[in-house]
């Protein structure tokens, strides 16, 4: 009979040292991430504004969460947020892929000059991007100047002034800002694909489309997943760009969940409902982008 060994903790041997070394990080995570989240969750079960008090009278249980699902503005904000997120990411992918492939085809001297220029919007704060695009969408701005050259005007594309085009207008502004990030990441991914693959496909007579779909795209799959996760989280919580550009209007046509949460907290003093909206936004992000990411990682692990 084999005697099973049992592990015995020994302070002298320094068994607790790893735990002690991790302790500062754990405490930071606890106080900066876990505590505010739990505290926010707690507040969402009450009905209080800023300066309000937690008392049995203000406890409403799940009412704030139930209210969300019967609140037409919240539903509209959810739809807008999801549309914005998918529209923004789709555009980022398409534009980012085109531009990064194009930049790779350029001569080195030209790409060295052009690459920093196309990545410059990434350095601009989203609020400033909103202000820049407000002037671009102004009837006397640059957009309508060029549209005017081809016989079009504000009645053909009303931009931020009509409910039908306001969300699209904010998505276009987002593309302008975030595509450079996609270009940077995709360029790094493209450079990591072995040149031999392309040489082999050339010998086999594959055209540019087939080469892209059979070699480039599969090789960049992990890069796209990372971009989707980063951009997904970024777009689901979109606030500053839309706030500066349209304020959520006209007629709530571009209102996002974050703008609605902000409005509830700071304009209507409904802090608890605002937190409930924020927590549901977090869950929405997890469902749309977190679960597919986990599935992707698990399937990779199984392979």
């Amino acid at each position, binding site marked *: 009979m084999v005697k099973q060994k049992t592990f015995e903790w020994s302070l002298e041997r320094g068994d607790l040292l790893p735990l002690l070394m991790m302790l500062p990080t754990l405490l930071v995570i606890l106080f900066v991430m876990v505590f505010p989240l739990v505290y926010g969750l707690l507040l969402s079960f009450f009905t209080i504004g800023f300066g309000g*008090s937690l008392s049995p009278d203000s406890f409403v249980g799940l009412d704030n969460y139930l209210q969300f699902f019967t609140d037409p503005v919240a539903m509209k904000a959810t739809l807008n947020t999801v549309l914005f997120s998918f529209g923004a990411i789709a555009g980022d992918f398409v534009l980012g892929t085109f531009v990064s492939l194009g930049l790779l085809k350029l001569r080195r001297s030209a790409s060295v000059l052009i690459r920093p220029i196309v990545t410059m919007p990434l350095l601009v704060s989203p609020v400033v991007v909103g202000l820049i695009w407000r002037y671009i969408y102004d009837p006397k701005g640059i957009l309508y100047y060029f549209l005017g050259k081809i016989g079009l005007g504000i009645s053909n594309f009303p931009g931020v002034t*009509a409910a039908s085009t306001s969300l699209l207008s904010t998505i276009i502004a987002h593309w302008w800002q975030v595509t450079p990030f996609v270009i940077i990441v995709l360029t790094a991914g493209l450079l990591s694909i072995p040149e031999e693959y392309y040489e082999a496909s050339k010998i086999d007579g594959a055209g540019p489309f087939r080469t892209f779909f059979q070699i480039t795209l599969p090789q960049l799959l992990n890069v796209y997943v990372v971009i989707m996760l980063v951009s997904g989280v970024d777009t689901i919580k979109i606030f500053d760009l839309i706030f500066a550009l*349209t304020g959520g209007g006209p007629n709530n046509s571009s209102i996002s969940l974050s703008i609605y949460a902000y409005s509830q907290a700071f304009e209507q003093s409904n802090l608890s409902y605002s937190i409930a909206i924020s927590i549901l936004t977090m869950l929405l992000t997890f469902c749309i982008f977190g679960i597919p990411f986990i599935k992707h990682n698990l399937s990779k692990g199984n392979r």
Partner: protein
Amino acid sequence: MYEAYPLPGKSMNEVACLALGGVFAGGKTETSDPGKPNLLVSVWAGPHADLQKEVSSTFTKSAVTIDDVDYGSLKQKQLTSFQSVSGSGNYDVVWVNSQWMKEYTDAGYLLPIDGYLKAAGIDTSIYAKGLFDGCVFNGQTYGLPTFAQTMIIAYDSEAFEKAGLAVPKNADELIAVAKYFKERGTGIALPAKQGTAAVTLFSQLLFSDGGYYFDADGKLDIASDKAVQAAAIYDELVKYSVEGTLAWHHDEVAEAMRMKDAPIGLIMSGLANQNADPEKSLIVDTVKYAPLAGRSGIAAATNSFWVWAVAKNSANAQAAADYVMWMTSYDVEKKQTLADQQVSAINELSKDPEILAKAPFLPAVMQQLAAGKIDPPLANFGKLKAALVVSLSEIASSDSAPADVMKRLQADLQGVDFSK
């Protein structure tokens, strides 16, 4: 209640305060003197803020640091500061929008200053009663009024002379003038972006024709004939507005006037002084002003003003109260009015010939303020206002009939308690 059950987690709020301070930091201007108490003052970073800094530098009793923050971030920064522990870098004095006063006093954020006023012998009857009353809650005074604003008509007299038009005296004439200019490629400039500026315009039209948000019994009455009429006038004005007004707030309207993009505009009086600045305006010599009247011809303001108040968590309450009383004193207000034509809450100043010569819009503003009403200090008024913001945006941006939109709004808000 607030004292008995203080909100836990204040340290978190302090962290948030510091973080917001970094994110929304405006220009901080300090006049430090080691021998004096230090005051941190929160103001809106409007065109008046530079003047407030300049004036504050001459205050001898304290060293004043002015933190001017853009309007969109001002309230949240003040709210975060109120949660902080006294003496932890929180605001001592806050410049509060009159519409936030009820919320701030209910939450216990502001200090009653009656004792300080009495000790200093301040006569509060010098302030316009309608404005001073907006600083008093439950019989206690929580601040002193200043910087009154209302929406008035600004027009380019040259364009009017060329067109042979008379200054509109009521809403129908205003619509006719807007239509005339729209048919000739411009139109009227007004704030039609989804936001509170549109509500201010709607409320002025409503008040001018004798309407209000509630009936005599205090019940919501936003689908009344007068409310529907005000919404219809707003709809007509938007129809004949300059292209792009659906994306305009107050600032863009004033800019359109100054740049001669619109021959007539509905501007906030607080921005009118910039029309006289040759570096910013093309209408310095031609701009004139008129009251913004309803269909009845009566012009009544949505009385909007600012309040100098002392934060309850100030560590220097006496010094803060001294600063508030000094900033709203006759001489200091006159100095500010002469410098940038802001409208003081002191009645006598509006009759001062020196000031009248500098601020040609003052008669129109004072006429409207005299007949004006303030938004009701109700806990749930914010809900009505937020809903009005969206309804007016719908009216402005779609073919929806104003009567239908207002009826729907009335129905949507039936369950909201507007009794307290």
